[in-house]
């Protein structure tokens, strides 16, 4: 197992390195001038432009960029953002917690409620409630997330006033407020963006789980268990669910990047201070140092997720374990 893990980790690191090199090459191929965000419509002397390019490293070739990034990485310096003029690590670390919170809770709900409803739907394929649940989630999946977000804001923030329309916390909340007040405030602000993301994504794990569970239900060992008179609940959870988990684990590995990338539209509509919106803006402004660093973090998270998914895969599927 340890040998497998070492080999898989090395493979992931190599994949991450290749992905990062490709990202940097693509960034250098992108048309557009990163200094547009700085100079705007001001006249600028060529000497000023050259000094600024040197300061932000936008005058480097692909290989110079990679070497400088690698050297900086060794001592925790990934450069300075062109648009924000601050250390990119500081900028990313400011935004990462909000993204992890929103993305993490979305995944948690998707992969608990979604899976539970999926298995239940598979066990009751002809029930009206199961069909209704499937239909509702598919409608949610089909609607663009920002439309769902805008509708939720209109109903629950503007019309009913139950939840704040945007932001991650109340700016007027006293810094000395109690823990309970702060948690309640965070939850109120989390409600609408979280609901939007869950509505937009729940259908995928639900339907995936339903299909897998339906397939598992037709397996001989399930039929044998039923023939032995095992109770339906036990059949469902012990004999159907675990084999049906394998594709879900794969799905989870693929979805982990959502933890970091979040949803640009949802972050925008709800003014949620996450990394997704930051990356989108940085790319639009050709803020190369910020895009490189954010891209690096994303690639590392994706590869880590991939290794963890493979590991989990081996846990849930004994057939994958070494003899």
């Amino acid at each position, binding site marked *: 197992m340890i040998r497998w893990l070492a080999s898989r980790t090395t493979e992931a690191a190599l994949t991450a390195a290749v992905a990062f090199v490709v990202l940097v090459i693509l960034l250098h191929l992108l*048309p*557009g*001038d*990163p*200094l*547009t*965000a*700085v*100079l*705007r*419509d*001001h*006249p*600028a*002397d*060529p*000497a*000023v*432009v*050259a*000094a*600024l390019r040197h*300061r932000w490293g936008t005058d480097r070739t692909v290989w110079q960029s990679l070497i400088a990034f690698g050297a900086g990485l060794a001592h925790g310096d990934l450069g*300075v953002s062109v*648009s*924000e*003029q*601050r*250390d990119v690590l*500081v*900028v990313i670390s*400011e*935004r990462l917690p*909000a993204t992890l919170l929103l993305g993490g809770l979305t995944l948690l709900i998707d992969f608990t409620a979604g899976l539970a409803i999926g298995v239940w739907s598979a066990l009751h394929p002809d029930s009206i409630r199961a069909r209704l649940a499937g239909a509702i989630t598919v409608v949610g999946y089909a609607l663009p997330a920002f439309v769902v977000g*805008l509708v939720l*804001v209109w109903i629950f*923030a*503007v019309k009913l*006033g139950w939840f*704040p*329309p*945007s*932001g*991650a*916390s109340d*700016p*007027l909340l006293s*810094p000395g407020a109690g823990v309970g007040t702060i948690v309640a405030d965070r939850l109120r602000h989390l409600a609408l963006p979280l609901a939007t993301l869950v509505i937009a994504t729940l259908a995928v794990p639900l339907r995936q789980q339903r299909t897998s569970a339906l397939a598992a239900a037709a397996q001989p060992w399930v039929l044998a268990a039923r023939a032995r008179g095992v109770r339906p609940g036990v059949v469902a959870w012990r004999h159907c669910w675990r084999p049906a988990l394998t594709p879900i684990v794969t799905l989870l590995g693929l979805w982990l990047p959502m933890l970091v990338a979040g949803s640009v539209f949802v972050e*925008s*509509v*709800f*003014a949620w*201070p*996450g990394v997704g*919106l*930051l990356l989108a*803006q940085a790319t*639009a*402004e*050709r803020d190369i140092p910020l895009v490189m660093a954010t891209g690096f973090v994303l690639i590392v998270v994706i590869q880590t997720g991939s290794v963890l998914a493979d590991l989990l895969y081996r846990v849930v599927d004994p057939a994958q374990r070494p003899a």
Partner: protein
Amino acid sequence: MHWFIPSRYHRAAGITGRIAALFVLAAPGAGAQRPAPNPTVVYAVGKEPTMPIPLFTHSEQANDDVSDQLFLHLAAYGPTGGVSGDHALIPALARSWRRVDPLTLIFELDPRARWQDGAPVTAHDVVYTWQLANNPVVGNDQSRLESIASVEAIGDRTVRVQFKRPSAEQVYTFAFLMQPLPSHLLERLAPEAITTSDYARHPIGDGPFRMARRVPGQLLELDADSTFFLGRPTISRVLFRYVEDPNARITLFLTGETDILDVIPEPAMAQVRGRADARLIAVPSNDLVSFVFNTRSSTDTTRPSPLFTDPRVRQALTLALDRTTIARSIFDTGATAPDAAQSAIWNWITPDVTPHPAADLTRARMLLAEAGWRDTRGDGVLVKDGVPLHFSLLYPSSSAMRHTAALQAQQMWRAAGAAVDLDRVEGPVFGARLPTGRWDVMINRVGEDPTPSSLVQSWSCGAARRPGSTNYARWCDSTFDRLVTTATTAKDQPAAWRAALARMAAQRPAIFFAASTTPIAVHRRFDNVIVWPSRTWLSLWQWRVRPADALPRDR
């Protein structure tokens, strides 16, 4: 209790006014009540103010808005809002100034001025800031200070400024554009290290507000500096909330969570007007949108453009456009179409900016025929010497406004015999292509300086020859240059600038189609709401909350 807004804008907003200023009375009895203990302004901005330090703001509006609360200018706008002459501005950090000769001014700093750490503001701070402004790695817009030859301290609080040439705007150029930084805190840092230093995280200024806290990605809070030497601010705190999505900003205003809404798209105007607790103010904007002709060939920039060198072609293409219709389709009645590079903040030059001449397709066709353009191929596109009147129109894809204008212009020019390809590109690509000259016509949107002498930067022959200048059209007209030079020192400033702009209008290096006014919505509980056409919130510290209307956040 006054808004400094030129009268035209009051008419546009349905408010009557005088020539330059309007005084709005406070609510009756307001003075008899105890003031709200914690008057608060909440303002949602579309870009996060991450670097609100003068010279380092990159002219990003959110950064400028915050830096104006933290750092004082040497001089502030006066009652007229003018920038021309030695007495148009009023003292701020500088308590007085005097002229030694046409090239020399001496400024006396107010001895009461203190940095928020208690250190006095000195002449050395001013000299240090001037030197920093000229350091290329700072990335400051040096062209604005180009006319200043030297700045030296001649005492603890006295600064002598030497200019390269006479100008009526010397006080503005130095005293308004210069917001001194604390040399005792920054001098030990390398200029390129300032933005990543502790100081950048917690800037210490000399203005009416001090930095209280910043929640990354969400908000920045400023608290009033009760020791501010020009008087205790009547607003206790200002919260700048970062909300990137314009619709989310509108929602926040409509739900009462913010007090100011400064970008109001036409579809949302009815909802904003419908709020009883909101007051709409029309503020002249420095925003100017135009179709700019490249006078050099887009394929070989060493040669003149085969299409746009002849002023008759430029004039004809102007006549073919119904500029008023284009402006109205974007800004409703909130914009006019000037004939030259004159945004709404320069209306003291020519108050009446009705487009002249109006659209005239027949005359446009006649002018083109006169210039030798004929429909020889029978496809509706004019041709001269084998060259079709066919060009591309460059603009950034991020701007819906410019896309609307492009589609309309394409149709109107087609009617005059010109074929136009729309060249819609991403913002950074647009920015990169402008200086290369690899374009025919582009839709430019600029924020003009409060002073018309800035025309030199974008429309003079000197700028046309200088690499890196914003004279992207490479337009050069020696008569225009002479008129601008005359105007910078003229006694009758409006007349002199009118002459320069008239010359530009006759030559048509660009078709200016929208000089807009910006409607701003402000919560009605505020009194003494003073907003400025440029650097809008400079006087925020003097706003007041009517006690009877105070909200929970003001208490």
